[in-house]
């Protein structure tokens, strides 16, 4: 993986919620235009780590971050960086599909609207829906409510909505955990299709999913004080067939969860 270009780099990252330390000393590199998966038992801080990369964790009261996350050499936690700009450049897809109670079109156009897009909105909406493999299913009802779509369609709409503002990275927090197996496969296919153009970081409870879609896998665990730490990370085939750490092996072979 030496020749990979690195888009995001966490250095000595520590996260607290009030007195409680949620993450300890995370050092991790996210390769550009690849899928990186975070796996680990519940409560190990995977989602917290994911949300650090676009500063969404700051929305929670009492959260504080120490350390750096570099994006193209710039620390996104530097005092002169506006989290709003970071979130426009690093999109996010959530565990439960969360389209706005607006039309399909307005959902995809939302990011364009708030980020001052001047140009052909129609064209961007169509392109985003095509990239999210949803266009053919919705092209005749762009003005009907997004809430009428099925769960899987809603999640692909959320991906289209994130894609519309051309983020360099999309963070996905267990994007398929609320979906049925067929919709899950559709999301996984989509991730593979998107990966050459956009960096994807995914949190998943499903190890087969991590093995199927990701290029790099990071395994996190919870310490005795319940703070999450990075056990190891590396090329996905390595992690799944030949892990360096016995705890990783114990986890992927299902000896604990």
């Amino acid at each position, binding site marked *: 993986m030496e020749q990979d270009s690195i888009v995001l780099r966490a250095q000595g990252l520590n996260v607290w919620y009030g007195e409680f330390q949620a993450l300890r000393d995370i050092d991790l590199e996210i390769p550009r235009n690849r899928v990186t998966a975070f796996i680990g038992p519940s409560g190990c801080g995977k989602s917290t780590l994911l949300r650090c990369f*676009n500063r*969404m964790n700051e*929305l929670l*009261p009492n959260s504080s971050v120490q350390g750096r996350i570099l994006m193209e050499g710039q620390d996104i936690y530097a005092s002169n960086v506006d989290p*709003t*700009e970071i*979130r*426009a*450049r690093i*999109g*996010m897809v*959530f565990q*439960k599909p*969360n*389209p*706005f*109670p*607006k*039309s399909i079109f307005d959902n995809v156009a*939302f*990011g364009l*609207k*708030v*980020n001052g897009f001047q140009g052909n909105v129609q064209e961007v909406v169509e392109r985003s829906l095509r990239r999210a493999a949803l266009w053919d299913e919705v092209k005749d009802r762009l*003005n*009907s*409510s997004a*809430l*009428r779509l099925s769960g899987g369609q809603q999640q692909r709409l*959320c991906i289209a*909505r*994130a894609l519309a*503002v051309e983020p360099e990275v999309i963070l996905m927090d267990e994007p398929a955990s609320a979906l049925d197996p067929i919709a899950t496969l559709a999301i996984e296919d989509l991730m593979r299709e998107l990966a050459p153009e956009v960096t994807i970081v995914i949190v998943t409870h499903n190890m087969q999913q991590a093995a199927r879609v990701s290029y790099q896998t990071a395994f996190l665990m919870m310490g005795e004080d319940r703070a999450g730490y990075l056990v190891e990370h590396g090329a996905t085939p390595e992690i799944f067939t030949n892990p360096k750490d016995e705890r990783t092996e114990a986890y992927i072979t299902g000896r604990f969860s």
Partner: protein
Amino acid sequence: MAGEVLKNIGAGTLHYRLSARKLVGTAAYMLFLLAVMVGIIGLVTLLVQVLVEGLPWLSPHFLTSYSSRHPEEAGIKAAMVGTIWLMGLTAAFTIPVGVGAAIYLEEYAPVNRLTRLIEVNIANLAGVPSIVYGLLGLALFVQALSMGRSLLAGALTLSLLVLPIVILSSREAIKAVPYTYREAAYGLGATQWEVVRRVIIPAALPGILTGTILAMSRAIGEAAPVIAISALVYLTFVPVDPLDRFTVLPIQIFNWMSRPQEDFRGLAAAGIIILLVILLSMNSVAAFVRNRYQARSEE
């Protein structure tokens, strides 16, 4: 014994007693139905009585004349126009301030003791008797701020009275907007104001409108605080600007009802009909707006 089903399950016996249990269920159902009927019958009786007494007095003359000592000449113009003015002004003050306060408390206010203190106080203010607001309005708006016994003073007083209702119900509506909408908007690079304006207000609007309707319905029927501010009944002009003196329907109705002559009772009933018509048309406008908004988001 017939109807008594028993089943031995080892350590004891199950007594199903189905018919007795169903009887209890039926009795409960009847009680609840009775409770509903009390309300409905009361309302219908009231409406019928008002219609029977008031309809004969309703006429174009009644709507276009000022009050008078002679029942057959008396009309409701001043009070009707006064009420419409007062409601318009009250809504204009209450809605922006109430919704604004609710948005601040839900979206911006830090979670601390001061915020909690403010929240508890607002809840308590909703329970303060309306005459207290009337006296406050008299001291503050009429006298201290020298607005006189004007529409403006009356509307500000009523606004204070119903603000807690608008704030409380708007907060509930905002609280009901799923947190995931906020996350989605922030995740796309929206600022806090954009999240509030483009996501939270549209999603909360139906609930906010419902609360506002309730508040305005309360305000339109209030006589006590307006008596403290205005206390006028014989007005032979209609207000044309917010600094004019005024009277409102509840005061006019109250005045007519307290007269000894039978005819004034009919006039009072006719006045109540007008009050109800204004109230219902106000509510239907709000309901129309609300339904349109809901339909638009679900289509």
